[in-house]
C-alpha cells in the first residue's frame, strides 16, 4: 500500500522545476524539495498556509489562481502539480490547459465523485453526499465542480491530453488492487499524470 504522496514521489524525477498550484501548507512540495531536490514553488492565498511554507523554507508565492497564470512562461516548468484543488476553480478545463502550457507534464489529484458511497448516498438519500472526505454542505463547499474518475479521463480524451499514468486511492489515501480494478467505483482520490 502506498499513499498518494508516495505515488507522486515515485513519478517525479529529481532536480526538476516544479510549480505546485494551491500548495496549502506545502507538505508535498517540502517532501519533493527534500527528497528529489526539485526547484519548487508553491502558489497559495491562505495567509496561514503561506506562513507555514515560509517557516519551512518552501518558496511560496501569494497568487490567486482564478485571476490567471499569465506570469508564467510557456513550458517554463518540468512539472505542474495540483492536489485536491481542481474542483475548487471556476473553469477546470481552462486551468488544465494553462497547467499544460506552463508545464511539460502535470500531476493532478482530485476527489472522485463516482465513488460507490457518493453514489449510494445520492441514490438512497436523494441528497448531496457529505462524508468525512468531503465534509461540506452543498451551499458552503469550496468544491464547486463535482466530477468522477471517468469524467476526467473523458475530458483528457476530448482535449487530446495524454494520460501518462494514473493511480487511485481510498479515503486513507492508500491504493489497493480492487481500487485499481474499478477506479471509478472504488477510488476516493484519483491521481493523473498527464502531458500534451
Amino acid at each position, binding site marked *: 500500500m502506498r499513499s498518494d504522496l508516495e505515488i507522486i514521489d515515485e513519478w517525479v524525477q529529481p532536480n526538476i522545476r516544479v510549480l505546485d498550484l494551491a500548495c496549502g501548507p506545502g507538505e508535498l512540495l517540502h517532501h519533493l524539495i527534500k527528497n528529489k531536490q526539485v526547484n519548487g514553488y508553491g502558489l497559495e492565498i491562505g*495567509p496561514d498556509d*503561506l506562513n507555514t511554507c*515560509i517557516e519551512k523554507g518552501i518558496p511560496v*508565492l501569494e497568487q490567486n489562481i482564478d485571476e490567471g497564470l499569465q506570469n508564467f512562461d510557456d513550458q517554463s516548468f518540468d512539472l505542474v502539480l495540483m492536489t485536491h484543488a481542481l474542483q475548487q476553480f471556476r473553469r477546470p478545463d481552462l486551468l488544465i490547459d494553462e497547467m499544460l502550457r506552463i508545464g511539460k507534464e502535470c500531476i493532478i489529484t482530485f476527489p472522485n465523485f463516482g465513488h460507490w458511497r457518493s453514489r449510494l448516498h445520492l441514490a438512497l438519500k436523494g441528497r448531496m453526499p457529505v462524508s468525512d472526505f468531503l465534509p461540506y454542505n452543498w451551499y458552503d463547499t469550496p468544491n464547486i465542480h463535482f466530477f468522477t474518475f471517468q469524467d476526467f479521463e473523458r475530458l483528457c480524451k476530448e482535449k487530446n491530453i495524454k494520460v501518462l499514468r494514473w493511480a487511485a486511492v481510498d479515503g486513507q489515501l492508500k491504493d489497493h488492487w480492487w481500487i485499481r480494478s474499478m477506479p471509478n467505483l472504488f477510488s476516493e482520490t484519483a491521481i493523473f499524470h498527464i502531458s500534451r
Partner: protein
Amino acid sequence: MPDVISADSVGIVTPQTAHFDTPLPLACGQTLASYDLVYETYGTLNSDASNAVLICHALSGDHHAAGYHAMSDSKPGWWDSAIGPGKAIDTNTFFVIALNNLGGCCGSTGPTSINPETGQRWEASFPIVTVEDWVESQARLADLLGIQTFAAIVGGSLGGMQVLEWSIRFPTRLKSAVIVASAPKLSTQNIAFNEVARQSIRRDPDFFEGNYLDNDSVPTNGLGLARMLGHITYLSDDAMGAKFGRQMRHDSYQYNYGIEFEVESYLRYQGEAFTKRFDANTYMLMTKALDYFDPASQTNGDLSAVLSRAQCEFLLVSFTTDWRFSPERSEEIVNALVKAGKQVSYAKIEAAEGHDAFLFPIPRYMSVLNTFLTRVANRLTTEVK
C-alpha cells in the same frame, strides 16, 4: 516623549560616525575623496559576525531606525515598530545596522556637508549618487564593522532597490534579502511625479540654483510642495478618504483660498514639517537615485538574467492599496526570480494605508517578516553547530 522605555524597545541609542578615506568612484564619473557615514546599531554582533542585518532606508529615511536618542524625544526611530527585542526584526537575535546614505542630510556626507577641497558647503556641487553608489558605500561600512556576510538585508521602497542591488552586486555577502513595496525600476508615472517634485523645488525663488544655504535661504515652499505631492502618492484614496473625507474647517464654505477642507490643512502641515527636517538638495538627489535605478539595463532589459547572479533567499512583500509601488511591480521581481530559479517567497498584504503601509506594524506583514527572519536566524545557529 517616552515616560519609560518599553521592554520591546532598543532603548536609548547613540549614532556613530564612520570616516572613509578611500576614494569612492561614483556612477556619475566623479569621485568622493573621503566621506562620512553615520549609523546606528541595535543588538549584539555574535562571535562569528554572522547575525548582522542591514536596514536600507527609503527616500526620507535616515540612520535612526529604532529607539530614542533621548528621553525627551517625541517619537522613536522611523521603523521602531519592526525593530527591537521580540519584534519582527528581533534584536535579541540579530545585530541590526541602519545608516544614513551618502547624499543624505542627517549626518552622512551630503549637500549640507563641508567639501574638504573647498572648505565650503557642497550644496549644488554635491555629485548625484545612485543606488549602486550607496550599496558600494554600505559594503565598505560592513567591512569596517567586520561583517563579511549579512544574515539579511532589509528595505522598503527605495530601500528595497538597495537590497535588490546588493543581491546582484555582492551575491555572496548576504544570506537573505527582504524587499518590501519596491520595484525593479520606476514606472514612467513615478518618474513624472519625481520631476514635478524637483521642479517645485527648483522653481522656488529661494532655491538659488541649489546654493540656498550660502544665500541664507531655504526653498521651503518648493520642498513643502514636493512633500505634499509625495504624501498624496504614498497614501491610498481610501486611506485619505477614511482619515479626512470632506471634513471642513468651518461650518460653511468661505469662498476663498484659505483652508476649507481638513485634508488641505494636513498636507500643508506635512509639507511644512518636512522642510524643518530635510534638505532640498538631498530630496532632489534621492529622487534622481530612484529614477536612475534599473539593474536590468545591464542585461538588455532582462531582469531575470541580471538576477541570475543572486545567491540569497528572497522575501518580497507588497500592499494591496499601494499605487506608487503597486503589487504588480513587486511581482515583476518575483517573476524574474522564479524564472531564474531563485529561492523566493512573496506575500501580498491586505492593507488600507497605500505605499505608507510598509512603515506600519500591520499584523500579517509583521508576522510574515518575523517568520522569514526567524528561519534565517535558526539556520545561523544550525550552521554554526
